[in-house]
């Protein structure tokens, strides 16, 4: 008996087109603009309060930030694999990777919740100083986007389970995947800005 093994790596060059609909790209650019404004506010506030921002990262739990970065990057990898699976018309494999993406997202929320508890135990709160106000504003805003992303991934799982997507018709999946990658991209900037550079 011959078993056909499908390759895990999807060759994008055979699918020369843009993933997702125009609506989701408008949403993504709007979200990225919002976060860009937050980053500019952060940089300007830092320039006016160098001592406060220099001391800030040393008081944070850097391990939690590192763990969350690794988890979100892994979630993006899982999402890319889910998209590759549906393009090969393999919804079961797609669901497998979507569940892993959802597990990564839940892990991120768990770590973030633990980090906030750890902050509370170490006398770190929103109004302690400007650095921590912006830390909470940026990270909690990002956490809300992760929660929204989890709802979207759950919907993608439900629709995939119903057989709504195929190799030729999966724009809904692409929209959700693009939104999830956007959340990862924003964290890629937040992590060094808040936890490393301060």
């Amino acid at each position, binding site marked *: 008996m011959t078993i056909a093994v499908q390759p895990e790596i999807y060759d994008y060059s055979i699918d020369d087109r843009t993933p997702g609909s125009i609506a989701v790209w408008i949403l993504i650019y709007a979200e990225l603009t919002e976060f860009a404004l937050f980053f500019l506010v952060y940089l300007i506030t830092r320039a006016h309060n160098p001592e406060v921002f220099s001391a800030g990262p040393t008081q944070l739990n*850097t391990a939690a930030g590192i763990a969350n970065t690794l988890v979100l990057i892994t979630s993006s990898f899982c999402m890319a694999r889910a998209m590759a699976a549906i393009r090969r018309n393999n919804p079961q494999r797609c669901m497998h990777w979507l569940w892993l993406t959802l597990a990564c997202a839940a892990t991120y929320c768990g770590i973030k919740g633990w980090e906030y508890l750890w902050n509370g135990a170490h006398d770190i709160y929103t109004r302690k100083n400007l650095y921590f106000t912006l830390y909470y504003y940026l990270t909690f805003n990002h956490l809300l986007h992760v929660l929204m992303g989890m709802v979207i991934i759950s919907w993608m799982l439900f629709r995939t389970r119903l057989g709504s997507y195929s190799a030729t018709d999966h724009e809904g999946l692409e929209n959700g995947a693009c939104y999830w990658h956007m959340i990862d991209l924003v964290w890629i900037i937040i992590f060094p800005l808040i936890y490393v550079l301060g």
Partner: protein
Amino acid sequence: MLTLSDKHSWYALLALTLSSALIAETTRPEWGLMLFVCVTVALKGLLVIDNLMGLRHAHVGVRRPMRLYFAVLTLLIALAMLFPEPLARLTTL
């Protein structure tokens, strides 16, 4: 263009994250390390955009703004980190 498979992109992203983490855990970054961290942010952004998001062969109107976002933002972050006094003067009312 950073053309890697999704698995190799993932490995590269993990390695770049851990290098930034090492800096965060061991030292207060001076200007050289600040630039290094900013470059890793730009590289990580490009890796996700091109190889995980799948925009490597997407329409230029979608791909270019995404790539520009990371290039411009990391440049602004680097400038703000290296020259905080001029930025403070520029933004004083």
